[in-house]
């Protein structure tokens, strides 16, 4: 059974007739130019945007899922996150347990270990660097142990070291019988870490498949409007605008 099965999913004119699925253990990369509808699609899957069409989560009809149940199945890490109060890392990660209504210490410790934030668990969020914060937000999402994790540009402002760290963590999370959809701008990292890619352009899914199927010169130059150099044989894969 697929974790997500979406058919003709539309969000007004921002996402049009999207059909896709997400399998257990899979990392799906959501790519596309700015304004393609990636965040809108992720938000609608997390219940933040109203949509039309059919959506099944782990075999259950999305509309029949109570909000709390939905939140236990689907975790969202939005594009921008911040804490208005100077909370400790520990407390922020614990907030991830809200869908379950508990403070399950084991789950919180596991999440912190996975995102490698245990060493600064007692520090305050506003005293951390951007890279450390990104991992805290990830740990917060892990703490709810959602079956499906939606991560919206988690590596946007990170240096290459942290980019790799975060992608590895997402990959290992998916491999623990979960599923991950991650919106990315870095096509090389997308090719390297994602099992499948979903390319969006002007609200539509224009290509869906493996890196080899999606990351072709013609598909990419159509979507991004620039010529690209693609070398998927190279390790790591190289996709650059000319």
């Amino acid at each position: 059974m697929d974790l997500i099965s979406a058919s003709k999913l539309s969000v007004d004119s921002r996402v049009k007739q999207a059909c896709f699925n997400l399998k257990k253990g899979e990392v799906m990369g959501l790519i596309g130019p700015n304004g393609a509808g990636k965040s809108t699609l992720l938000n609608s899957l997390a219940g933040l945007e109203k949509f039309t069409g059919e959506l099944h989560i782990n075999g259950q009809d999305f509309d029949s899922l109570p909000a709390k149940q939905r939140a236990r199945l689907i975790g969202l890490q939005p594009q921008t996150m911040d804490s208005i109060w100077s909370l400790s890392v520990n407390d922020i990660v614990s907030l991830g347990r809200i869908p379950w209504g508990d403070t399950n210490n084991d789950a919180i410790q596991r999440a912190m270990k996975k995102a490698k934030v245990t060493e600064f668990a007692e520090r305050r969020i506003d005293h951390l660097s951007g890279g450390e914060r990104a991992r805290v937000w990830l740990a917060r999402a892990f703490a709810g142990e959602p079956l499906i994790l939606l991560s919206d540009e988690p590596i946007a402002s990170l240096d290459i070291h942290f980019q790799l760290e975060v992608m590895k963590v997402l990959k290992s999370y998916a491999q623990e019988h979960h599923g991950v959809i991650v919106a990315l701008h870095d096509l090389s990292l997308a090719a390297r870490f994602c099992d499948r890619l979903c390319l969006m352009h002007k609200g539509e899914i224009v290509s869906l498949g493996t890196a080899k199927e999606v990351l072709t010169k013609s598909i990419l130059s159509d979507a991004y409007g620039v010529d690209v150099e693609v070398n998927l044989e190279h390790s790591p894969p190289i996709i650059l605008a000319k």
Partner: protein
Amino acid sequence: MPRPLDMESGNPVTTMATFLIPTLSLLMLLVTWFSLGLGSVPVPVMEGLWGWLHGAHSQEALIIGEVRLPRTLLALSVGAALGFSGAALQGLLRNPLAEPGLVGASQGAALGAATVFYFGLFAGLGSLATAAAGLLGATATLFIMLILAGSGHPALVIMAGLAISTIAGAALAVVLNFAPNPYAMQELVFWLLGSVSNRGLDSLLILLPALLIGGSLIWRQRRLLAALSLGDRIAESMGLSVARGSRLIALGTAILIGASVSVAGNIGFVGLLVPHIMRPWVNHRPEQLLLPSAMLGAILVCTADICVRAIPTGTELKLGVLTSLLGAPLFIWLVWKERKRWI
């Protein structure tokens, strides 16, 4: 909720938090005792209280039971309502500068209560009329402010609050302008300055239910207050109903502010400063800020009332005037501190 993580880490802040409620309780008892003992006539507090509780008509029983006890209990309840509502508002609006007075709720409550004062509306409700009008005024202004501020962006909240309090202030000026006689106007102005003297125990019949109902409406939304630290979209994605919960918190806050303004007038800055002082003691967690803020609010307002009585001025300095005099410089300091975050 148990906090096993904090226990394990042995974080000193948590150790402080463990002693917070007992310490505040002790302080509250001390202030209450001091407030009951303070007055122009020295009276033994225990004997007076004991006598009053047993229906004695002795001088000390009357002074303690009829004069000082209502004043003390009112100061404590008004302070608790202001502290609690301040903590709730700051958590809801995600803004450390939010305060009943700054978001327009106090002015709305004052306008409602003043209108009833003059025009004798809700006559059927008797002494509850001003409280009902205060509640209506506070609710209306808070909800208009929330609609106007929309997304809850910190700067927008302050601007919307300013707009609403200006309108409520203008309407209040109109009511004062058309006062039926100068005495009525003087009475109203004095009441607006904020005081808990000469109120009688029946004012507690308004304040205590308000504390109970408003407080429990907010208390049940602690999880939402915690989640709102990360923004309303995160809270929504974690399965919480942000719109409904926010309305309930706003309603609870309006009940607390409406009741306290209708009984004691405007007592400014308590709702702003108390949560700010308490925040580091509860690890900055908005949901754990509520009870300590209510307790410190009670302690501070009661202490301020003790000062008002102890300061030898010809005319008694109004409680609200004192809190404003002391609170305004602290507010300036707070703005100065917050500048770093906003720029």
